[in-house]
């Protein structure tokens, strides 16, 4: 990832943004992100896996700010005013209405999409439309540099918008403090939160594992990352679990015109490091540490 490379967004920010994704969960995104944080001279971190964030377990953040995250709306029935006509339940596409024993209706908040159709359709005007409290977002100091992170409420909505907010705030702080690199620990999958994590970024690192599942998921997340026209780097964690599949991934990556930046052996010390609250490169000596460092260096020299 060279200095002159610009993201698909075409923005002229001096901050480079590298997003770590995987498709399949549990391949080592957070482990790699935390190690990169330890290897970087100057970095800001953003944890965008907002519904199962783990990076803070390694970075041990000291909170600086902690803000609520309101996004979208939710509908609430005033049961005093509800006549039980049921028009809301017929109109709702999300099966969010439940008829109570007294004939009035109530809304399951986890199923309410916040579309407001019921609010407009209710002849009794018995449905209120309130701002939705979706979670909170925090700015912290860590031993690696500043970090922006978030926590979606249990069963929360609007994770994509929270991801966008976390990245925007991280970028703003980076620009203000002249931090050249924003490292984003991304969510698994390829859906809304992943699309929000990669839109407008400068490069993507895909961390995968050598399994048929890992390979299948890698193909899908690669296709998604490619659609943003930014450099895609690929590394394989636990590479010796299946050396044949590791080789297939390496070949496929190069054939697709992406950058293969290295492999990391299966190492039980990784779990020990995690359980002690340390990044892999802070705890492990020897080959595993060297390989992670090589991947880190490859990203900055390959193109």
């Amino acid at each position, binding site marked *: 990832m060279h200095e002159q490379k610009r993201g698909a967004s075409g923005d002229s920010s001096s901050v480079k943004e590298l997003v770590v994704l995987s498709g399949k*969960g549990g391949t080592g995104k957070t482990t790699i992100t935390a190690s990169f944080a330890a290897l970087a001279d100057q970095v800001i971190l953003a944890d965008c896996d907002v*519904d199962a964030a783990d990076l803070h377990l390694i970075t041990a953040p000291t909170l600086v700010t902690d803000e609520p995250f309101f996004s979208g709306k939710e509908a609430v029935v005033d049961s005093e005013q509800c006549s039980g006509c049921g028009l809301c339940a017929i109109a709702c596409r999300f099966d969010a209405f439940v008829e109570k024993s007294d004939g009035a209706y109530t809304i399951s908040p*986890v199923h309410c999409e916040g*579309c407001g159709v019921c609010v407009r359709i209710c002849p009794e005007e018995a449905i209120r439309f309130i701002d939705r409290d979706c979670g909170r977002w925090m700015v912290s100091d860590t031993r690696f540099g500043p970090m922006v992170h978030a926590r979606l409420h249990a069963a929360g909505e609007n994770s994509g918008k929270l991801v966008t907010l976390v990245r925007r705030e991280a970028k703003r702080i980076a620009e203000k403090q002249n931090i050249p690199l924003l490292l984003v620990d991304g969510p698994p999958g390829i859906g809304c939160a992943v699309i929000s994590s990669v839109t407008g970024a400068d490069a993507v690192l895909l961390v995968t*594992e050598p*399994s048929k599942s890992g390979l299948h*998921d890698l193909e899908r997340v690669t296709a998604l990352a490619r659609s943003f026209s930014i450099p895609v780097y690929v590394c394989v964690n636990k590479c010796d679990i299946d050396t044949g599949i590791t080789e297939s991934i390496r070949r496929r990556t190069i054939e697709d015109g992406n950058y293969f930046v290295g492999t990391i052996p299966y190492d039980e010390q990784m779990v020990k490091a995690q359980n002690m609250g340390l990044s892999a490169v802070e705890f492990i000596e020897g080959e595993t540490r060297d390989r992670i460092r090589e991947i880190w260096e490859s990203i900055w020299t390959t193109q």
Partner: protein
Amino acid sequence: MRVAVASGKGGTGKTFVTVNLARSYDEPVLVMDCDVEEPNSAIFLKGEQVSSRRSHVLIPSVNEQLCDGCRVCSTVCEFNAIAVIAGKPLIFEDLCHACGGCATFCPQDALHEVEHEIGTITEQQDGSIRLISGKLDVGKALAVPVIRDVKRSAERARESMMLIDSPPGTSCPMVWTVSDSDLVILVTEPTAFGLHDLQLAVETVREIGVPFAVVLNKDGVGDSRVERYCEQNGIEILARIPHDRVIAELYAQGETIVHDARYAQVFSQLWQKIVAFTANEEAHRA
């Protein structure tokens, strides 16, 4: 009975537990793969494809002859999916949540809903195991409509036992997947990340109000923190699956492990615990 297999953290072994449970069930069983962003059950449950169809949502389409540019559609849309430009509505289909509000409230009846494809639903039969998988198209943001479509395909199923492979996380896709289950199995591992994300998943299933219990995978790789947490919070651990590199190697090749007598026993005991757990839950409710 519907048993969903979920976890906060990805990669703890949801698909692994689901497919090995399916393989060790004696009667016909229906498996639903609701991890539509990255569905993997089909890698392990082979068998013949029975059917395949496209999954779609309903999005608005404008009849320009009837539209008078009144902007009601863009006002009612909570998702900013409609902009009225030069007097005509422009639909941003990827922002549309398919609520139907614009078509319902258009005073001129100028909007009607059309099918917009976002994924594929496939069905395959592997001996007594039927698998229905949903796959979200790459580039589409909304997983929930495909998840709901998988579940619709399973309505009036002939099998009395259903296993549901859930997406990771604790947000809407996971909630829609597990919320109508008789039991949610939360698969975790004895690590710092495993425990933390288990706690989030427990909070979520408690919020939804579905019965749940834990399966501890890769037992032995870390420490006793997950067991301590479960004990302190009165959460039952239904099974402990040992940490074994051989399992990882078989998993990598897309193989199940219950042909090995040691692991066949782990999963048949897990089935006994599932049956006992749900019977106990039912007795409590009664």
